[in-house]
């Protein structure tokens, strides 16, 4: 956890006061909707199909139990009793009244939560690995750097009106859980041959209408120089990014049009002029930020406690443990992933009561800390292994002991037509139907790791391009159709999926997914060969055949 101090608190409170004034001016008519739109977007407020939608940042996915309780309070007091965790370490509320928004904001500010720059054409919430600080083998806690970047990007005087939105993600592990290759800037923490800490910097990734995997712009930037390097990239983008066409305004298009070498040369030239200036970090500053992160006082615990051995006799517990519990860097502890994907429910939704209960569970068993990942699931990052059976029971009591993490029903989906004014097709009901089809845990387990991602339109909020199976809603003659891609992935080996054939109507999507899965089960070389690896080995053709032979 990063503890806000007086400076952080002052800034957030000043922001709330500013927004209160802006809402007042909008309600009195002093501000036009066009002018207000830009201001509300900078504060995470969208106007959606039914109401205002409010998006709140959870920087690098770390929440305290107190903060989670406050989110529950906002859900209950200002919304309809639930919130929606997204793929960008944000939470969204769908039914907030404009006049009440400043109060909701002020309530959140009290516990150090804010919504600055959660939309609009500025630098967005900096995301990171939800296992940061606890993942075995990571270079160091990437949140130190994410926090430095959070501060750098917040209300930046030069980059608050960029050509388009701008997203930075950072990982410190070999296994990339932050999907850095589909971000505008991806940062991979590493140590160079001299043992210095720094970053591989990638640029120009993103999904949406024109998807791109980010390219490496510089293999090593020293940690001391990271802010100036990021500033150099942004400065080049702000000056030369396209503003004539919003579909071509993202940095990925600039990088693509210039070519990575030319773009890199521009950035280098700019960087050389500023690298030794005011943005240079020194160890004192980095240590100061590090010192404001709270780390639990871990005990010395056995690797395999008796409680866990006993619980292993319970098949239901074991099924959950196998896919929800991951190794922790400290012996005797574990990371628990809490799936927010119950059969038949919208992926990523949590009720206020569930949030409150989870906060209690975190207090009792996870040093009061909760994490949010881009898969729309939560995690308890520091659970004693001996407490796992108790945590499982407590989760079961609130309907969240769902044993499907990374399985076919652990679906990532955007809100689609049910909430989103840009949607072409529904996403949530498709997700619900697929979870029903694969509700049998044994079947799902047999299939193994398989990520299904669904977006209701080309904007790709559900990351469909990088789903092992990607489902994209399109509209044809006023009807919902879905394009299916396979073989995408969002991890360190990120790839875009390949279209398998013509779009299929709404009613057939779940059947198609079943067909693809059946084909995989028949084609895989060994039970351990993941779906994506089978696709990689064989290409899409055998899957295409299986799906379209009968259609």
């Amino acid at each position: 956890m990063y503890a806000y101090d007086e400076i952080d608190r002052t800034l957030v409170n000043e922001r709330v006061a500013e927004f209160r004034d802006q809402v007042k001016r909008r309600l009195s008519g002093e501000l036009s909707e066009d002018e207000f739109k830009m201001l509300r977007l900078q504060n995470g407020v969208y106007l959606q199909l039914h109401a205002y939608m409010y998006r709140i940042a959870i920087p690098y996915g770390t929440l305290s139990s107190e903060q989670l309780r406050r989110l529950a309070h906002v859900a209950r007091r200002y919304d309809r009793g639930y919130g929606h965790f997204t793929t960008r370490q944000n939470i969204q509320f769908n039914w907030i009244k404009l006049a009440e928004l400043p109060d909701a904001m002020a309530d959140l500010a009290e516990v150090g939560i804010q919504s600055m720059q959660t939309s609009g054409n500025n630098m967005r919430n900096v995301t990171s690995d939800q296992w940061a600080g606890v993942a075995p083998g990571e270079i160091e806690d990437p949140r130190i750097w994410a926090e430095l970047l959070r501060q750098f990007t917040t209300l930046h005087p030069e980059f608050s009106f960029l050509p388009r939105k701008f997203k930075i993600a950072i990982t410190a592990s070999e296994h990339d859980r932050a999907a850095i290759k589909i971000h505008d800037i991806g940062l991979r923490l590493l140590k160079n041959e001299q043992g210095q800490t720094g970053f591989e910097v990638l640029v120009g990734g993103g999904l949406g209408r024109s998807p791109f995997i980010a390219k490496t712009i510089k293999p090593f930037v020293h940690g001391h120089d990271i802010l100036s390097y990021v500033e150099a990239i942004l400065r080049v983008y702000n000056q030369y990014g396209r503003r004539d066409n919003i579909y071509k305004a993202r940095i990925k298009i600039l990088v693509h049009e210039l070519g990575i070498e030319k773009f890199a040369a521009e950035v280098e030239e700019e960087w050389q002029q500023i690298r030794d200036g005011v943005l240079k970090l020194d160890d004192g500053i980095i240590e100061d930020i590090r010192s404001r992160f709270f780390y639990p006082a871990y005990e010395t615990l056995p690797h395999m406690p008796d409680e866990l051995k006993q619980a292993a006799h319970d098949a239901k517990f074991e099924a959950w443990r196998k896919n929800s519990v991951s190794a922790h860097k400290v012996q005797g502890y574990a990371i628990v992933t809490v799936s927010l994907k119950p059969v038949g429910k919208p992926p990523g939704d949590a009720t206020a009561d569930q949030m409150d209960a989870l906060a209690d569970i975190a207090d009792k068993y996870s040093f009061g800390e909760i994490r949010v990942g881009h898969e729309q699931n939560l995690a308890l990052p520091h659970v004693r292994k001996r407490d796992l059976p108790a945590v499982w029971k407590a989760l079961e009591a609130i309907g969240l002991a769902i044993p499907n993490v990374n399985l076919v029903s652990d679906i990532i989906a955007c809100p689609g037509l049910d909430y989103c004014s840009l949607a072409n097709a529904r996403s949530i009901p498709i997700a619900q139907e697929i979870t029903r089809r694969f509700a049998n845990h044994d079947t799902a387990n047999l299939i193994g790791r398989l990520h299904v991602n669904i977006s209701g339109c080309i904007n790709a909020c559900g990351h469909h391009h990088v789903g092992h199976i990607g489902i994209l809603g399109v509209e044809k003659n006023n009807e919902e159709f879905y394009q299916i891609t396979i073989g995408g992935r969002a991890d360190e080996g990120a790839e875009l999926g390949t279209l398998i054939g013509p779009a299929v109507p709404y009613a057939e999507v779940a059947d198609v997914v079943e067909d693809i899965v059946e084909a995989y089960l028949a084609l895989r070389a060994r039970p351990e060969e993941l779906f994506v690896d089978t696709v990689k080995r064989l290409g899409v053709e055998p899957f295409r055949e299986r799906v379209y032979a009968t259609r």
Partner: protein
Amino acid sequence: MPLVKGGHIIADEFVRITDDAELPAQGAILVSETRLLADPQALLGRTGGKCGVIWPNNRDVDDLVPHLDRLALVGLVFPSFRDGRAYTQARLLRERYGYRGELRATGQVLRDQFVFMLRAGFDAFEVKKQADAEAFTETVKRYSVFYQPAGDGRISALHQRLQLRHSESAGL
């Protein structure tokens, strides 16, 4: 449009001269970049009064640099409040090229951008709405802390914290 400078609404001493108009003998003038670059000597060497330029936001400020020391005003343009290229131009002019004359924000200038503009180096504002111009002093006091350093010399939160620590440990 009201002009705010030094925190006050003031009368604009500069007169805008179109590209084909004759130069007035006396008084401060404001010209387009085309006119300036067509004959910088005539404009900057003029004895009747100061000269300023409106520089478009899609042209490199590098082309302006050779003339900076003789310009009394550089006006940068916000064709819409969404187009933030002039923030970068302002910082480059102030921080990299050391321009010390008037740096004026023109176009769609609203009160909600004042803080960003001040921090980027602007010191004069052609404000779109009278009410915004009147609210200037109040609006720029909205923020008392800043996370990142910019050219306005304000200390960033990172450094502010270190200073606080030092003074604490020194028992001050």
